[in-house]
């Protein structure tokens, strides 16, 4: 177990380092923030002064070394635009995004998984067909299309719900609905096939043979087994929901990290973009480790394989 944690930790650190390096070089080589921020009309002296101030006049490798050194000491750099620590800028926006993602995840799972389970239990019934139909529709519509459609319907035509901002609970409805439709459909599909797979296993027949009625057999024996493949899907979902949040926040002007990211890329606010990318990277790495651990906990067979090698 110790070696497992050790290996995972090393690999995770390396992943984040590679990510930070990649973002650093891509950002530095794809546009000049000084020109963009100071403006061409300000004159070469002003641009040069900006460069000197932020260390952009140094050779690239030196900038990189300084960046890494800062990063290791927990300093994520300064925002050019806000003229304060980038971490602070991001942290300010984070709660809004976490709320959006959290509520969306809960809604997605709460709709998708039960829908899939019920569809599997009543295979070929109207509810199963409906679930499959809805999930195909949900899968084939991209987030931003759903978002725009919802804005047009509920915001513009019916004028029932707010379409920008994040002040009240009402503001959550449209962004969450935008992000949850497609992903709930994905979960419904996976939950359905995982359940069907498990329901056909001989041990389900054993559960009935030993005296469990169908409801209890499903709850005690089918659900824990069907959860195993869903854990993998959840890992992929965390990546999807981050991308979804970036798009959705921009469509609905949600003041979170996603809209900050797009804004910062536009203004070449290097430190902020890098901070966000590292944050996302760390989230993904932590998710993957959590899922590995969850897997070992849910399925004793995988734990065995890994320890034996």
């Amino acid at each position, binding site marked *: 177990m110790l070696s497992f944690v050790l290996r995972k930790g090393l690999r995770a650190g390396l992943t984040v380092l590679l990510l930070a390096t990649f973002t650093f070089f891509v950002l530095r080589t794809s546009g000049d923030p000084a020109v963009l921020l100071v403006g061409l009309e300000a004159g070469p002296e002003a641009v040069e002064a900006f460069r000197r101030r932020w260390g952009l006049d140094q050779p690239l490798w030196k900038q990189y070394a300084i960046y890494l050194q800062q990063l290791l000491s927990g300093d994520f750099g300064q925002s050019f635009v806000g003229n304060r620590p980038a971490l602070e800028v991001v942290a300010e926006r984070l709660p809004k995004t976490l709320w959006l993602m959290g509520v969306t995840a809960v809604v997605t799972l709460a709709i998708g998984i039960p829908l899939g389970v019920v569809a599997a239990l009543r295979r070929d019934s109207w509810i199963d067909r409906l679930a499959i139909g809805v999930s195909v529709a949900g899968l084939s519509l991209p987030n931003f299309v759903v978002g725009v459609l919802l804005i047009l319907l509920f915001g513009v035509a019916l004028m029932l719900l707010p379409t920008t901002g994040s002040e009240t609970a009402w503001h959550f409805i449209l962004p969450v609905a935008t992000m949850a439709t497609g992903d709930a459909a994905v979960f419904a599909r996976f939950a359905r096939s995982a359940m069907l797979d498990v329901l056909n*296993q*001989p*041990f389900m*027949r*054993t*559960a*009935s*043979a*030993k*005296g*469990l*009625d*169908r409801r209890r057999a499903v709850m*005690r*024996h089918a659900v*824990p*087994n069907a959860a*195993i493949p869903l854990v993998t899907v959840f890992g992929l979902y965390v990546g999807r929901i981050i991308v979804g949040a970036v798009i959705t926040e921009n469509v609905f002007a949600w003041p979170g990290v996603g809209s900050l990211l797009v804004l910062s890329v536009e203004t070449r606010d290097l430190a902020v973009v890098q901070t966000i990318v590292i944050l996302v990277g760390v989230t993904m790495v932590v998710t993957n480790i959590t899922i590995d651990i969850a897997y070992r906990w*849910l*399925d*004793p*067979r995988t734990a*065995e394989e890994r320890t034996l090698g």
Partner: protein
Amino acid sequence: MTLLSIENLTVSFDTPHGAAHAVRGIDLAVAPGEILGLVGESGSGKSALFLATLGLAGPRARVRGSALFDGTDLVGLSDRVLSRIRGRRVSMVFQDPASSLNPVMTIGRQLDEAIRLNRQNPGRPGSAAARDLLAEVGIPDPGRRLRSYPHELSGGQNQRVMIAMMLAGNPDLLIADEPNTALDVTVQAQILDLLKRISRARGMSIVLISHDLGVVAQICDTVAVMYAGRIVESGPVMDVFDAPRHPYTAGLMASRPGTAPAGRLMPIGGVVPSPFEQPAGCAFAPRCPRRRAACTAMPPTPVAGGHWWRCFNPVEAAAAA
């Protein structure tokens, strides 16, 4: 006296191609403490018969007829009522022990569940009762095994665990569906031995479903031979093995190395009829070497009791012996 009395039972499955007839009218009686061997090849309906009767054959199964178990007709009971009979009065053991146990639960938890479900008064605390059961089915070091997962045990041990679990409710009848087919030869023999020992010790009846006549010869008291959803011959094992009267039973014995006389095996030509067809006469007639004109009609159901067969032109007793 009978424990289970099945009368004119039919089982069919709804499929997109129409009804598939698995069991086409069966009469069968199991006496208390008896070990009955139900023999047939794949597609004969031998497994579907009991799975459907106990409500384990899935939502597409249609069961008609009656199956009186200790005075209660099992046909048509709801899942909830049947679930109180399963495990407590009638238990079932299946072919593939490894996949018949829940892979993510310890042996101990699976046994405990069966004990708590089926005993109003467990008597001893759960784990002690589970240990007793494992000891009864011959698992060494039962205390340690309770904490194991099924993948950590061999096939034979898993089948023993399965049997222990099905004994938890003290059933009167155990249906063992090819309990040794997936196991190694030496383990097969041990599992049969165990079933016989438990049946005698507890006075529990067993229906042993198998494709292998040798297995029946090893432990059964009576035998019923199934073909295409019907019982074609039944009787005490000694009588049936001494003088098989139905041509199918005789054919099975002549085609099996071991029961066949030395020399050439006699395969049965032709194929099993499709479950979607409803032959008017004897289903075996198209493959039968003793077929006559009369065989296009259904042979009468003989009066049950003792050794009986369902055939217009049975093998002569002397010739068979």
